């Protein structure tokens, strides 16, 4: 079975600093990967996805992620964060016919 591991449960950063949220996956088949964001008291919203093609994927709100097959990673990055980026971020991969397997989540806290 596939699994997704988010290496940090919490990441505190200062406003305007860069951030990287780490995600590793395990899979022996074709990989489809996603990052979702959950703002306080809301459902999940898709940030970006990797299905095929370029390994550098750009998403909404200035986020990007890089698919690295050799390291089985899909880390999320943003060069300069804003207070409004405070949220919980989930990495996920497709398992079987369109079921998502989620990581444990990373809580991003932005300090002024």
């Amino acid at each position: 079975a596939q699994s997704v591991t988010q290496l940090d449960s919490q990441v505190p950063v200062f406003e305007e600093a860069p951030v990287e949220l780490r995600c590793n996956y395990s899979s022996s088949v074709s990989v489809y990967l996603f990052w979702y964001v959950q703002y306080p008291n809301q459902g999940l919203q898709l940030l970006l996805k990797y299905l095929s093609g370029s390994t550098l994927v750009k998403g909404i709100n200035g986020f990007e992620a890089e698919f690295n097959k050799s390291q089985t990673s899909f880390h999320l990055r943003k060069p300069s964060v804003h207070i409004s980026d405070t949220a919980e971020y989930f990495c996920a991969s497709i398992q079987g016919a369109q079921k998502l397997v989620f990581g444990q989540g990373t809580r991003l806290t932005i300090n002024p």
Partner: protein
Amino acid sequence: DVKVTQSSRYLVKRTGEKVFLECVQDMDHENMFWYRQDPGLGLRLIYFSYDVKMKEKGDIPEGYSVSREKKERFSLILESASTNQTSMYLCASSSGVGTSGTYEQYFGPGTRLTVT
């Protein structure tokens, strides 16, 4: 815009009660999902459905059942609520296999259920 709505944002029930959580999507999606979200555990799949009247167990189906009588509606049922079912419940939908699907799931706002 895809819209997934859930019947309640907050719900408080007593132990032993039968609880219904309703989810409706307006994009004619084939697939619908129910997840449970707990701190440190991420989202765990309870049940999913690929079509009307079809359902399959996810990773943690014990204590839950589902119903899908219409394509747009997917209900989660707690037959006899227990305190360990206190959690955030999220519904999602996606377009079906065989479409040039993006595999993206669209989520509702969640229902925070407290069982006392």
